[in-house]
């Protein structure tokens, strides 16, 4: 090879003596040193705890797949709570280490990831779960390993009724309570006859049953239902069938399917012909940019709304709201407002903290003490629970909290009525095995 021969740049890097073996070793040592330094230098909060062993809180979230959008805003809520706890001195003087696992929005993956959290990562408690089918698939694992599972989003009714577990808690609402809260409004103010459109899986089905029961109890009727399978790209063929003599369509969908449903129902003129109402998940703040005017006039029920109007005009809610907005801006350039997933994840971790402090929880050996501390826990409105007061019922581990009946005006949520938690209570239907 002469000096004038062209040299391949990659070949040149190795053979033109620019990088000698010794120099390469040097780079390696320097890199290892830099990495080591980052491990030795403590995180800002860690210094405050000295040698205290951290509590490991596992959090299973859908960070990819169909439910990733909600999973991302959920994780913001968990992270907000953990950061706040560590900043305030941890739990029982020990820091909290958050271990996050992505369930990819699939029950089988969720089960596998939970096994890893429980067996390999040896988490002390769990706070997470978004899709109901994932939550239901994972519940036996917490029971087998005797670890408290604080559900943060899953709404399937059976989680705290026929499939309830001593180890699982739901520190937010569920469909029977919401149905009790909104059914009188639906029947007396919007119309007697309803058609229910729902996502055809565990959450949608159990929620459909709860609303049907309450609408009928209040003197109304459900004259038809349409179950829409998860993963339906174009709903028009199914929506085209929704016709007849009824007053309104009640939707039970969330995430991208909810956006598709409302968009296509509007395009087909259903929103003009019938009153549109439904679960608050249909029109979360994160859906509004995609819905535009297509959600105008929608009436719904939700435990949380991103507004600072009474009764949510409290200083604690304002602090929560501002922190959430700043963090959500980091994961989405459009700057979304917090949704109920951010709220319930934040509050679920705070409920765990109070239970762990009250029971002087040390680790899994104290799981029963923690369960007893959480059973009947009263959560007071404040910085820990900016949404409002809650009661975590002992009999079924189901919480009751106030609900907001709202509508959408000019692309924003407007509170129409506040239903206090006492008016949402339904009898427990759980027998712990």
């Amino acid at each position, binding site marked *: 090879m002469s000096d004038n021969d062209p040299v391949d740049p990659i070949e040149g890097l190795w053979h033109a003596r620019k990088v000698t073996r010794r120099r390469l070793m040097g780079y390696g040592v320097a890199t290892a040193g830099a990495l080591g330094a980052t491990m030795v230098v403590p995180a800002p909060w860690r210094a405050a705890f000295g040698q205290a062993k951290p509590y490991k809180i596992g959090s299973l979230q859908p960070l990819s797949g169909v439910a990733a959008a909600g999973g991302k805003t959920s994780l913001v809520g968990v992270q907000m709570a953990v950061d706040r706890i560590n900043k305030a001195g941890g739990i029982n003087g020990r820091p909290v280490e958050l271990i996050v696992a992505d369930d990819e929005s699939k029950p089988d993956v969720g089960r596998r990831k939970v096994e890893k959290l429980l067996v390999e990562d040896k988490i002390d408690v769990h706070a997470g779960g978004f899709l109901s089918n994932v939550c239901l698939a994972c519940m036996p694992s917490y029971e087998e390993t005797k670890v408290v599972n604080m559900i943060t989003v899953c709404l399937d009714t059976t989680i705290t009724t026929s499939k309830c577990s001593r180890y699982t808690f739901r520190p937010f609402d569920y469909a029977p309570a919401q149905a009790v809260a909104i059914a009188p409004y639906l029947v007396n103010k919007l119309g007697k006859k309803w058609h229910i459109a729902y996502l055809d899986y565990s959450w949608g089905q159990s929620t459909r049953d709860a609303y049907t029961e309450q609408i009928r109890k209040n003197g109304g009727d459900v004259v038809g239902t349409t179950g829409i399978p998860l993963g339906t790209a174009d709903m*028009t063929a*199914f929506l085209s069938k929704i*016709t007849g003599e009824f007053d309104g369509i009640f939707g039970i969908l969330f995430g991208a399917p909810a*956006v598709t449903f409302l968009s296509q129902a509007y395009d087909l003129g259903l929103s*003009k012909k019938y009153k549109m109402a439904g679960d608050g998940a249909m029109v979360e703040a994160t859906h509004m*940019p*995609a819905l*535009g005017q297509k959600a105008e006039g929608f009436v719904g029920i939700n435990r949380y709304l991103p507004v600072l109007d009474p009764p949510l005009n409290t200083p604690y809610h304002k602090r929560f709201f501002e922190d959430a907005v700043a963090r959500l801006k980091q994961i*989405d350039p459009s700057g979304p407002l917090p949704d109920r997933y951010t709220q319930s994840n934040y509050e679920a971790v705070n409920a765990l903290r109070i239970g762990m402090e009250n029971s002087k929880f040390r680790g899994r050996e104290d799981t029963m003490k923690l369960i007893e501390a959480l059973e009947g826990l009263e959560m007071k409105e404040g910085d820990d629970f900016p949404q409002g007061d809650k009661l975590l019922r002992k009999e079924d581990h189901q919480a009751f909290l106030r609900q907001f009946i709202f509508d959408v005006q000019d692309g924003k949520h407007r509170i129409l009525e506040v239903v206090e938690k006492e008016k949402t209570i339904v009898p427990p239907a759980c027998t712990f095995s």
Partner: protein
Amino acid sequence: MSAMGDWIGFVWGWLATHGDIIIIQTVNGIVTGMILALIASGLTLIFGIMDVVNFAHGELFMLGAYVGVVVLSISGSFWLALVLSTLVVALIGAALQITTLRPLVGRDPLNTILATFGISLVLQNYALWQFGPVPRKLDEPITGQFVLFYLAYPWYRLLIALLSGAIIGGLYLFLKHGTYGIWIRATTQDRVMAQAMGIPVPWVHTGVFAIGAGMAAASGVLFGPLIGINHAMGLDWVLKAFIVVVVGGMGNLGGSIAASIFVSLLEAYAAIVVSPAQAVIVSFVVLILTLLFRPTGLFVPTPK
């Protein structure tokens, strides 16, 4: 005979009383079928010429919609968004083919399947990271509706069907009469002979992948206004596109288009009499029956 007469009478009576929904579902089936055909034609073109099962096709569809959102927000023109998105994603497709698939030519098909699956995961998570979890809106260029029995049917849905047909028709003419189209057909028929005749086969492959990616992007922009643009929007379509590609005959462009409309019409008609969950099973039943009795595809002439 009288039992047969009763049965015919019943069917006739049912059709007479359900005429409105049958016509509505026919329109729905054709519109959905044309969107599906546009997606599937890119998929089948890539398979027919390169023997590559492109698992990233749904993500190219999604990327097209996102590029459309960006262009629309800057320019305010839906049509410019449609054209630019097609071109940009076609270029991305070409780059992906050169960097990822070209080095795998001649290897076991499993390698390309894994490579395209990897690309799909990367693109999906890139979109989630770049654009965030909040679904985006793509405004339709026309918003009017016309009365179709008891529905107010959007003109835009008919426009989608027409534009999809026009794009597919343009592709057909290009393949039939264009110089580069003839290169593509020659490469499909005999890769070695085409190379011997001086056709740059590797670049034909790149061009075909770019065309397939561009068509996926165009369908993403066209369908975008009917939903919220999100990182997972391709997942719902690509499974169905794979079904129609198999039912139509792998690599058979005309077969895929016919299968798209056939399967969509079947699902739409099934939705009249059964629940949506049962209606979506129809496409899987057709797939299984095709694999059992006509594995080369429903719309491929029987080999003699």
